[in-house]
């Protein structure tokens, strides 16, 4: 959304909110409306009534030396008007608190918990104010700038007794496990939250409900997701997802690395769509610094992003079918995926964590053998999609297993911020590539499939169709690929070419600086939404004039999509849980970051 749009909205809101709101020029190019803390609920309601129906994110930034210190950026999208709105709330250092909006947008629930966890901001009226990514007994709030980055010695089996786990509640004179035992009895801990009330004899109550602890080590939770499922027979009566097992502090780590180095972290978030993440990150950084990638790089980015989408969908299809007991599609999908990974290896030397798309363009141009390999893939791929469909699409067992299972109503999907094919399966053809195009997607001809029922089968059909549409986009991009540079010639970001270094001392110094310290970004914030295979991915990046991101907030699609899981599982069977988890296509690295 342009600054102008924001200003217009601001003028409208002004009539109602008067002096309680003001206009901010951050993030760059878009701007935002700063709302005073007490009226944020009201403003959220107003925004929702202004057709901002899709809740995306609340990002926090800790401006340690400014006052007010905390800066919360709420991001909501209007799927109808194809635009989005940022509004900010600034909070003071002493007892930062703001009203919860989780009853207006259901999806705010987890985002608010994350802010509570990471920044220690409390949300009044939040239904479930617990930590979400860090363990419940964690001390401090990691994303605060004054949180010490000194690390803690890790307990391995060899030194388990020698290391005192600082992160557990202090238990002087007791062994390392005492803390955990204390945790078991802590009110509000997971085990207590869902444990059925015990009868007089200490046995579970007469309902005969059973708590099934699914994961974090379970074959089909697609990583280290833990679900506490309350079962009545095999019927699911309640679900409580527990995440954070793969939390690696990527957002915090990025603050200690230069922009180029932080790029490599984005590969590792959604490890099935590394190039999509690279692209989202690079676009945001480029916007912050104010450079643009050259045309060849942009076209290649589209090709690579679509290849990534295809290979991500192939992993989804294979594992989804495997979860439902169909073994063979998995191997067929991985056959094609390997072809794509071979191409990635060809261009970057790495099969998965390529970091090939970087701020300023691409790491380097693709080698000569890339295009023939791509051409060969393009030739075989459509028939291969047909092969997968033969095994599944009209298979009666597959239909029975997926149709009407894991339903998600469109309103719920929007309020929870469910994006990607999981949203489109619920009936809305909303795709950032069409709604707010980047990388010139508006010039490509492709269609956004949408389902009608919001069940597992419709999500399946949507993703299968997306495979074909991505193929179509790549074909168009191949036709418009022309020789040219693949990196911007803006010297702010890209070091001078090698041949200049022999003649020019200044170039040598410049090269040295960019290679060692990195390029600097101005004060400001930037945000570019993109669509990866999983949905809406955007990086909200704040710069402070240094070569490191002051804050890198990743709004990841899996996090939001997973949040809607309990809604989809309600009333299903255990087998449906497996089908539904597969159908929302989460990657736990993307959820926990």
């Amino acid at each position, binding site marked *: 959304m342009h600054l102008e749009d924001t200003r217009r909205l601001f003028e409208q809101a002004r009539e109602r909110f008067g002096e309680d709101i003001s206009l901010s020029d951050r993030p760059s190019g878009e701007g935002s409306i700063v709302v005073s803390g007490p009226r944020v609920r009201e403003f959220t309601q107003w925004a929702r009534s202004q057709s901002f129906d899709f809740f995306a994110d609340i990002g926090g930034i800790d401006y340690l030396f400014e006052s007010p210190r905390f800066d919360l950026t709420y991001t909501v999208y209007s*799927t*109808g008007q*194809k635009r989005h709105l940022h509004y900010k709330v600034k909070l003071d250092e002493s007892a930062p608190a703001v009203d919860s909006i989780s009853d207006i947008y259901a999806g705010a629930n987890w985002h608010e918990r994350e802010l509570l966890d990471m920044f220690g901001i409390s949300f009044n009226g939040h239904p479930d104010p617990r930590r979400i990514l860090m363990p419940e007994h964690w001390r401090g709030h990691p994303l605060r700038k004054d949180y010490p980055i000194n690390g803690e010695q890790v307990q391995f089996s060899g030194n388990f007794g020698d290391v005192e786990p600082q992160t557990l509640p202090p238990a002087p004179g007791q062994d390392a496990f005492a803390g955990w035992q204390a945790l078991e009895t802590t009110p509000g801990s997971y085990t207590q939250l869902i444990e059925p009330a015990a009868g007089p004899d200490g046995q579970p109550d007469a309902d005969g409900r*059973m708590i*099934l*602890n699914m994961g974090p080590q*379970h*074959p*089909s939770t697609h990583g280290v997701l833990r679900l506490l499922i309350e079962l009545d027979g*095999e019927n699911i009566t309640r679900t409580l997802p527990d995440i954070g097992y793969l939390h690696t502090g990527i957002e915090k780590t990025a603050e200690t690395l230069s922009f180029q180095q932080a790029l490599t972290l984005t590969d590792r978030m959604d490890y099935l769509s590394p190039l999509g993440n690279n692209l989202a990150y690079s676009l945001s950084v480029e916007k912050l610094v104010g450079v643009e990638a050259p045309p060849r790089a942009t076209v290649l980015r589209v090709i690579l992003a679509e290849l990534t989408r295809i290979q991500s969908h192939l992993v989804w299809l294979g594992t989804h*079918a*495997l*979860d*439902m*007991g*169909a*073994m*063979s599609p*998995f*191997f*067929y999908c991985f*056959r094609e995926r390997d072809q794509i990974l071979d191409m990635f290896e060809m261009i970057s030397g790495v099969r998965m964590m390529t970091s090939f798309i970087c701020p300023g363009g691409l790491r380097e141009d693709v080698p000569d053998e890339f295009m023939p390999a791509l051409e060969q893939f393009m030739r075989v791929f459509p028939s291969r999609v047909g092969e997968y469909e033969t*095994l*599944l699409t009209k*298979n*009666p*067992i*597959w*239909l*029975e*297993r997926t*149709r009407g299972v894991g339903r998600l109503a469109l309103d719920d999907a929007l309020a929870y911020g469910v994006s990607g094919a999981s949203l*489109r399966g619920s*009936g*809305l*053809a*909303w*795709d950032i590539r*069409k*709604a707010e195009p980047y990388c010139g997607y508006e010039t490509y001809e492709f*269609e*956004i*499939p*949408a*389902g*009608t*029922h919001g069940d597992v*089968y*419709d999500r399946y*059909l*949507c993703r299968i*169709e997306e495979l074909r549409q991505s193929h179509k986009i790549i074909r168009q991009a191949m036709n418009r690929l022309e020789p040219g540079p693949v990196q911007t010639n803006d010297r702010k970001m890209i070091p001078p070419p090698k041949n200049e270094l022999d003649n020019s001392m200044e170039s040598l110094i410049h090269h040295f600086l960019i290679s060692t310290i990195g390029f600097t970004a101005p004060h400001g914030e930037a945000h570019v939404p993109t669509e990866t295979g999983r949905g809406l991915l955007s990086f909200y990046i704040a710069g402070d004039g240094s070569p490191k991101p002051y804050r890198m907030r990743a709004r990841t699609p899996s996090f939001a999509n997973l949040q809607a899981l309990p809604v989809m599982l309600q009333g299903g*069977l*255990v*087998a*449906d*849980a*497996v089908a539904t988890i597969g159908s929302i296509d989460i990657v736990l690295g993307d959820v926990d970051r």
Partner: protein
Amino acid sequence: MLFDLIASFIKAVLVFAVVMSFVPFLIWLERKLVAWMQQRIGPNRTGPFGLLQPIADAVKLIIKENIFPSGVEKITYFLAPMMSMIPALAAFAVIPFGSPVRIMGRTVNLQVADVNIGILYILALSSLAVYGAVLAGWSSNNKYSLLGGLRTSAQMISYELPIGLSVVSIVLLTGSLSLNEVVRSQASHGIWNIFPQFLGFIILLISYNAELNRAPFDLGEAESEIVAGYHTEYSGFRFAMFYMGEYVNMVTVAALVTVLFLGGWQAPFGPEIPLLWFLIKIFAFILLYMWVRATFPRVRYDQLMALGWKILVPASLANLAMTAVIIVLGGPNAVRILSVGSIVLAVLVGLVLKAAVALRTKSAPGLAPPAGAGS
């Protein structure tokens, strides 16, 4: 008398040895076949073509430590694997695998025991096999095991019904419960039971797939849902016993279907070579089950029950009724009339099923044309 004893002993040992040595071969075959279907190579490191891989696996499992997890019910936990393997092996005792041969002037049936209630015996033993799963699931003190045990017991008990009903039709046709007699009657009818009992054959094929706990009916051990079901907590030799029991069961079922429907050891054409045709038929079934496993997704628990109770039981009842009526009314031509009637009935059942599926499909028009905010 002594001769009979010695002969029985030799036959018992031979059958045991052959069936047990089938198991590693079948494991290898399944892994190899499924691998080929999935564009993989399959085991190929141990021995020629990886043939020794299952042996190596078995050795590894046997020398592993026996683990009793805390909280298990020790006696039943210990007994359960045996309960699942022994009935499978014992059931093979009544399977005739060749026409009687003459040794030292005496006729020897190629069958460990020619029990005159052979069919009943097999049904009884296959019901016993449920206990293995139930006890394992219950005694393991694990929720996944419990779910697996529950699923398996419900599934096996439900599917015994269509199995029993289909077998009763065969009994009507044969007039005897002896498996030897079933084979002989097929010879005397001049037509294998698969024709007059076509629907029964299909029902039995599906039901035994469920009874065997094999994909797409492997709910009791659905690895993506309940980890490994009732044998989640088992390791080492006890796990191997479950695993072997499964494959022995497969051989037994394949042999049983061969005897009941495909004329047992009889040659479809050409000279009768002892054992050859029997083995070929058995393997045809086993390969079919393997192929099915590589192709289909798994059905859901409630759908499995619905299939059993709402489709297979009524269909097998219809088949039984038709068989009884035609046998009574048809006189000497009963078998020929049945051959036509059975196929007609099978087609009818198929059409009804297809209509039911189409009715359900109609409510789902699939993807809407791209519309809304995106296009």
